[in-house]
């Protein structure tokens, strides 16, 4: 038993060191956001002398930060909603109806899981240019929807398949239309799967940098990660402002993560553990 105690202490120590390594950069970012340049360089490890909000205010009101933030919000929300909508509709057809092409269409969506869409960025660029959606937020949204649909359809089909059929049958006998059965019976039952699909897509879309980098050139349409690269270049010598920008960019998703950590972890790892 004594050996067990020593071992547990060692494990606690390992976890504590790990937590320190994980949290130190984040704490440094938050603390430095309230410091002046001189303070950051002279005493990087101390708490800020005064709670100075000027860096944060500067980022918020004198840069395009709010515009980038809004763009990211609009793009992520639209893409996730469209994935949920189109994904649930398709999954519902695949899960609850038998029809000739069912198995092949399921495979078609499944195949999309294997393809890293980044590798098709050149044709996507040409295609968006042809249909006039290059350098637009809508173009980005459509690509994210295409990226998210395979796993969305996969998860939703699996979930909808396992729902019992009694409620559906009862509603059908009572004369409810197919659309009504889907909207009022199936969708509420599928809520846990919808949450997983939403989180699994929202995080990578919110954080994505590659597609905006290639497709968006107009500053007013840039997303938060992309805007951050502009911003970091402009303020490269003002470290207090840089840390403030990083902190503000990290803040929204961190807050949501802390509130919903269980769902985040489940949603993001579940995609991998199929």
């Amino acid at each position: 038993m004594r050996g067990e105690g020593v071992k547990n202490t060692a494990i606690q120590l390992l976890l504590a060191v790990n937590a320190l390594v994980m949290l130190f950069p984040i704490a440094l970012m938050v603390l430095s956001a309230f410091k002046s340049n001189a303070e950051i360089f002279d005493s990087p490890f101390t708490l800020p002398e005064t709670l100075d909000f000027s860096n944060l205010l500067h980022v918020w009101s004198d840069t395009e930060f709010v515009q980038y933030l809004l763009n990211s919000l609009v793009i992520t929300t639209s893409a996730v909603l469209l994935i949920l909508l189109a994904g649930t509709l398709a999954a519902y057809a695949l899960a609850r109806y038998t029809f000739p092409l069912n198995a092949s269409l399921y495979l078609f969506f499944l195949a999309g899981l294997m393809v890293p869409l980044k590798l098709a960025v050149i044709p996507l660029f040409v295609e968006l240019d042809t249909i006039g959606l290059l350098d637009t937020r809508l173009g980005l949204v459509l690509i994210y929807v295409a990226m998210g649909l395979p796993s969305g359809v996969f998860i939703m089909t699996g979930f909808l398949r396992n729902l019992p059929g009694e409620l559906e049958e009862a509603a059908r006998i009572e004369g409810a239309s197919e659309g009504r059965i889907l909207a009022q019976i199936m969708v509420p039952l599928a809520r846990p799967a919808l949450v997983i699909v939403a989180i699994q897509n929202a995080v990578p879309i919110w954080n994505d940098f590659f597609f905006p980098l290639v497709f968006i050139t107009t500053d007013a349409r840039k997303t938060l990660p992309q805007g951050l690269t502009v911003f970091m270049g402009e303020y490269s010598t003002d470290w207090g402002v840089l840390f403030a920008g990083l902190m503000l960019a990290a803040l929204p998703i961190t807050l949501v993560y802390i509130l919903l950590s269980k769902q985040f972890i489940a949603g993001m790892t579940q995609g991998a553990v199929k």
Partner: protein
Amino acid sequence: MARPKRRWQRGVWIALLLAPALLVMTAFVTLPLLAALRYAFYSFNGLAPAGFVGFANFATILFEAPYSGWTLRALGHNMIVFVALMLLQNGLAYLIAFALLKTLPGHRIHQVIVFLPVVLSAVIVGFLWKLMLHPMFGVVNAALALIGIDGPPWLGNEDTALGAIIFTNAWHWVGFPALIFLAGMQRIGAETMEAARLDGAGDWVLLRQIIWPLVAPATTIVFTLTFIGSFNWFELPYVMAGATGSPGGATDVLGLYAYRMAFGSATAGLQDFGRGSALAVLMFLFLAVVSGLALRILRRREIEL
């Protein structure tokens, strides 16, 4: 009598359900992938294909100097990234998972902490560590100075730049494999663990001979994801080392190389959609073949162990 009409209606309903998803997938996945395959055999004039060139684009990338040298160098760096992440990031993740498995006080909060960087954008993580690794004003060298070590310019030195970005990647992602391993370990079941303990197995034996074989499915997932991630590596090196993989190409990887080849860079003047597509096709084939093979071997291993 109503039957044929019903059936027709049912068909339309199913088609309507599938149409939006199929339309988007066809337009933005299937067609672009087919186009990438086609483009790889064309020379380009700006955005438009100019003429069929057979395998010339592939030959240029693989055998023609200086391209072949750049291709090999980038591929070599990707391999280093993969091996280093498997050992450093995933090895650490395995240990952390085992530590979390004990459900000691505070294990929930430790899970939340180790996963926190995973939800942040690579752009935020990359810039944050770039500031921390700054040769003059960064905290890493400031901390080293406290114990009398003169830290190098981590990202500016050819010998340390790639390692510094790999380390940052490990910090960013370690929570992901950790929680996948943890889920695998939790599935083993208390009885198996108890039985082994009663047989006198210590932690080390348990970790090596009981847990390791039984988490093989989780290892397969982690291996595959790390492999695909390492060979698609782009955002972190782009943010920390720029599109050219500075200094002097010491951090150039296939992702950056393909990006320059597709969309050009002021210095390299590589921009060529045909060659860029050929490189993308090669990367896709490489990923598909190697991860397919690895998956077969790993799945067999899961059964054998």
